[in-house]
């Protein structure tokens, strides 16, 4: 029972990171109809920036803030100077450009920071606390879960309660109509990329210090799992991304805990296949006709 609880909390904590990362993928998918394969590498880059600030100033919180700001800037930059000019005529073009960006970012990070693992500190204890004789959850796990949930709520409020959120949704669903109503659709796309990359940057700062280690390829596996989570939830659904992330986190935690870590990548593949076979649109896909 102890072990089950431990795996559950551990799964929810890493699941929260997958949820954030999946959410970032969904944000870009909804805005631009493309899967940002460079998101993992972008998050590693901003995490390097964040930890450079942490080691320079000694403040984790300053580093976290700078990493998120760097995410905003990097996301806007990638959209403005790169993705905007990749035609939609050939969907493979976008994938190839994104993969090229991955290679570029990883090579630059290797040249600037080196290809060996660098230490990264965290502000909270990562050892699980004992509460009433049950050892289940660490303070760091709580911080990760709490931080992601706060971001999820803030994003939900942004999209449903503010006028820029309304503009962003309208641009994604009906770009031409939005332009006729005076919405600068191009700018909304840039804002969407910036937001997504900032959320990805947060996820990188949260997950890289634990287990992964700071390394140019640190987020490769996280990206694969988060992509699975996004597909599980339905690429079009932010709520699906969050639930999918938590669900995938839990499943992987149980698989790793009970069957051993070697089976984890296999479990991701099985899950992805199962969802694609049974419910190709994802758990949260809504089948509704678009009459436009």
């Amino acid at each position, binding site marked *: 029972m102890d072990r089950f609880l431990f795996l559950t909390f551990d799964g929810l904590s890493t699941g929260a990171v997958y949820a954030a990362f999946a959410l970032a993928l969904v944000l870009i998918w909804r805005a631009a109809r493309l899967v940002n394969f460079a998101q993992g590498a972008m998050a590693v880059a901003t995490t390097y920036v964040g930890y450079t600030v942490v080691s320079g100033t000694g403040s984790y919180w300053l580093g976290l803030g700078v990493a998120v700001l760097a995410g905003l800037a990097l996301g806007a930059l990638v959209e403005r100077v790169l993705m905007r000019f990749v035609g939609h005529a050939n969907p493979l073009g976008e994938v190839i450009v994104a993969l090229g960006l991955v290679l570029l970012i990883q090579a630059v990070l290797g040249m600037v920071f080196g290809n060996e693992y660098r230490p990264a500190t965290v502000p909270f204890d990562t050892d699980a606390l004992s509460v009433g004789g049950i050892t289940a959850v660490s303070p760091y796990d709580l911080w990760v879960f709490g931080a992601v949930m706060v971001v999820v709520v803030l994003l939900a409020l942004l999209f449903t309660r503010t006028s820029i959120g309304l503009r962003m949704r309208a641009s994604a669903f009906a770009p031409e109509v939005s332009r006729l109503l005076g919405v*600068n659709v191009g700018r909304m796309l840039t804002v969407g990329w910036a937001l997504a990359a900032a959320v990805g940057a947060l996820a990188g700062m949260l997950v890289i210090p634990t287990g992964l280690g700071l390394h140019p390829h640190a987020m490769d596996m996280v990206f694969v799992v988060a992509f699975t989570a996004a597909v599980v939830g339905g690429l079009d659904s932010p709520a699906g991304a969050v639930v999918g992330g938590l669900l995938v986190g839990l499943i992987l935690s149980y698989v790793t805990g009970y069957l051993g870590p070697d089976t984890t990548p296999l479990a991701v593949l099985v899950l992805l296949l199962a969802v694609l076979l049974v419910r190709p649109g994802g758990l949260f896909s809504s089948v509704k006709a678009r009459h436009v």
Partner: protein
Amino acid sequence: MSAEPILQVDGLSAGYGAVPVLREVTLSVPTGTIAAVLGANGAGKTTLLRTLSGLLRPTGGRVLFDGADLRVVRVEGLVRRGLAHVPEGRGIVAELTVDENLRLGGLWRRDRADARRAQDEVYQLFEPLARRRRHAGHQLSGGERQMLALGRALIGRPRLLLLDEPSLGLAPRVTAQIMALLRQLCDSKGLTVLLVEQNVRSALSVADQGVVMSLGRVVMATGAAQLRDDEKLRHAYLGF
């Protein structure tokens, strides 16, 4: 009614790729009037509206709106100048609620109070919308969608309204209501309407001017009453 045209189109040509669809279209719409653009499928009516609002780049000619050349205005800037385009297929955002669609129509406005007032007016004007504020666009009936698209355009308090097939798929009674509303807005608020319609009878019932297009050209432009009443003319150009 002022004699000064709010919209002046001179020799406008446009097309998709190498295929020309509009061929030197010239027309003029006086302020506060309704011009009905009529013609068969493929005559270029929708293309005309899309070129006027800049969604399609003209290959030749010019468009003067209130004396200003529209070719240099970005699509996003049109509402601020007082031009609203309700595209074909009703152009509502199906994923957003009725309320969100209407808010979207007023977001660009500096005068927030008037944008809210305009929204309330739309709810008064279109009773069914007021009862379905929280419904998503895709849950609405065809008539409600048309009301929403038209209402959303009115929130910008436009001076020129480009309307593409407002009667498409609507019951005759609803069509008549919408046509009557357009007439009333023109007479009371000085709104100018360029109306593209397949439904010739209902369009001519409210229009001041009838513009008949065929194969991308304007083949005739005359008073709507004349087109409506002169059987020979109607038969020759509109086929009934």
